[in-house]
């Protein structure tokens, strides 16, 4: 996994610098290459400038362009990428979020998530493992 050519690239959409830092740190330790986008617009530019990403982790509430908008953009422009998206949210009970997540039928993380949860989610996407219960702290 330490091989540069086989290194998986992760695009992490997160506006909280401390969270980006911790997640980057643990994923780098696990041999991932992590690209941070503080908002959806930056993330979109990164995708469109030819970068190849194996994993997308989108926080929903981000400035300028939200994780949902970005995901919907992918659905329109790069539908092949959508099954590699992990949604992370601080508020799974918000109505819009809720509708969105129900439509997605994709694994998602709720904040505050643990590092173990992040790693498990990423691994599941890569191994195409069936979606298991990711949540240690679940929504009621």
């Amino acid at each position, binding site marked *: 996994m330490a091989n540069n050519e086989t290194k998986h690239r992760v695009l992490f959409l997160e506006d*909280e610098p401390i*969270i980006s830092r*911790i997640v980057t740190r643990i994923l780098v330790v696990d041999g991932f290459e992590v690209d941070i986008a503080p908002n959806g617009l930056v993330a979109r530019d990164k995708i469109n400038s030819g970068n190849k990403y194996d994993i997308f982790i989108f926080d929903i509430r981000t400035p300028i362009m939200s994780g949902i908008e970005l995901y919907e953009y992918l659905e329109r422009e790069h539908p092949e990428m959508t099954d590699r998206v992990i949604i992370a949210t601080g*508020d799974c*009970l918000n109505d819009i979020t809720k509708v969105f997540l129900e439509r997605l039928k994709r694994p998602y993380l709720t*904040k505050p*998530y643990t*590092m173990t949860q992040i790693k498990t989610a990423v691994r599941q996407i890569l191994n195409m493992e069936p979606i298991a219960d990711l949540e240690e702290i679940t*929504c*009621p």
Partner: protein
Amino acid sequence: MTIVKKTIIAVCVVSLALLTSLYFISNAIYLKGFDKIESQTVEKNVHRVTEAIAAKVDALNTFCYDWADWDDTYDFARGYNQEFVDRNFQDETFSSSDINIIAILDTSGKMVYGKAYDFADSMEIAFPDDFMDIVAAQGLVNPADMDSGVSGIINISGQPTLIASRQILNSLSEGPTTGTIIMGRFLNTTVLSDLATTTHLPITLAPSATVQSNPDLKGVAALLNTAASVYVRAENNGYIAGYTFINDITGNPTLLVKIEMIRDIHAQGVKVIGLLRLSSLVIGIIFCVAFIILMYKILLTRLTALKNNVNKIGSMGDLSVRIPVIGKDELSKLTGNINNMLESLEKSEIKRRSQKELLGHIIANTPNAVLATNESEQILLANRAFERIFGADEAGIIGQQFDSLVQLGNIIPEFRAFLDSGSMNLKKELQYNYQGRKKTIIASFTRASEDVDKLFFMILTDVTEERAKQERLYLTDRLVSVGEMASGIAHELNNPLTSVIGLSEVLAEEDVPAQMKEDLSAINTEAKRAAVIVKNMLSFARKRLSLKQCTQINRVVEDVLKLRGHEQSLNHINIVPNLAPDLPEINVDFFQIQQVFINIVLNAEQAMVEAHGKGTLTITSEKVDDIIRVTFVDDGPGIDKEHLNRIFDPFFTTKEVGKGTGLGLSISYGIITAHHGLIYAKSETGKGATFVVELPVQTENTEEI
């Protein structure tokens, strides 16, 4: 009385009055007129009689004059001469000239010759004894007037006598006088019949002596003395009599003359008046009949018809009927006016009726109970809502005394107090309580008018639900505002909590001293605990899609007991389940209801263990009407009174810091309210607490909450 009768009576009375006045007027004017003419005729005839007597006196005087101025008599008075007597004083002289007495006196007044003769019996009679005394006394001897002598009437031996006296002169009517010649004629029946023949009147003469002895004539005489010279009097025998006195030579009344006439004129008058009255009566009757017939034809029959028409309309109450208008007179106009009046009445009646119907509909269908009474508290009106709320039969209670409706409970004294107060309006919110039925009612009492017919009514509005809703809404409002704040806070806390949890995790994997590792683990655990609280806050604050499904409530209870079973046995909590076996399944979110039951059970366990290290929790489920009721009764310390109405407030907790969020019962309240149910607590300090959850039995499927 009808106008017809009145008119007939009026016409008859007026006619009768007119006829009566005519009767009296005819008496007063016509008969009096006739009587006056009669009386004047009598008077005239009386005068004719007195004039006839006066003419007799004059004739006697003239005859006496022929004898007085004659030389033979002149000489005879100076010396008696038998030859003169034989030649002139034969019986024929008396009978041919209707003379009764001739006396010749000399100048000394001594009678030279005197003879009395009754020419009716044709024989000489005795010369009256008192003749000389009377003529001397009456101044008939040597009368002073030589030209005309003295003539008149005197009484001789009680016999009224016409008398003439002259001085005897020679044939040239020259003196000196040689004596006096006196001639007399008795005013006896012969004279009277002579007079009667002359005047064509029956004449009666009464000398003074006779008058004095007859009371009737005495009365007549008295009237004649004081009043007129002629007195006229109707006699009983159908005659009218005229009376007058004839004076003697000295001017004293000496002879009462009475004439009588048949009352032809009076009788004629009476006849005329009779005819007049009869004709008036006939005319009056004809007038009455004709007038009444005409009135009847022209006015009364039509008036009666109009009256009957109006009566018919009045009795039928049908204002749409119109009276036929005939002709163009005042009555036709009146009929037209009545028709116009009927039309406007009909219009206003229709309007009034529709307004009344509208009002009736409004009153009947208003959701508020309406009850009206009169002054004596009799019920005049009660609408459907009243019937519904108080279970009274709307029609059956009309006319009853309002206080006989015992189901009005404490409204009765309130209404009575209003009646006694005399005020016009009173609006009051009452807590109605009758046989365990409790309601909050706004009672509006009104006094309708100050008129004769006083009207009181009450409008009762059941605001029990509104008040309960307001109460709930108030709590819900508080929950929502707290929830919104909690949502914001929770969301903001999630990011730093992610960092704390992540960092502590990452750091713990580094090569750090064991002590520090333990601390980092503590940081991680505490942050996760904070995260749970935040999640609870969010779940309280946010609506979420709830998945309703047909659920057996008993199974929810059993599930909760299974979950808590281990802990409960550890804590010496004894559970007494008392679950109705045949509860219907109801449409609820299984997990939400489970959460509610867990909250209640946890609270109970915690309270009982804290209080006496053990306890009994009785859980009862039952179906009451259309609800399923689950009751949790613990034998813990109970809930203080001042806390009881705050336990469903968010963040209210009596647990020590860190042991409770104060959100459990708030969330439970939110869930049960969203299920259209009720959750409430009953408790007294030291006697345990009872929590009751009531859920409606309903069949609808999933519903957004």
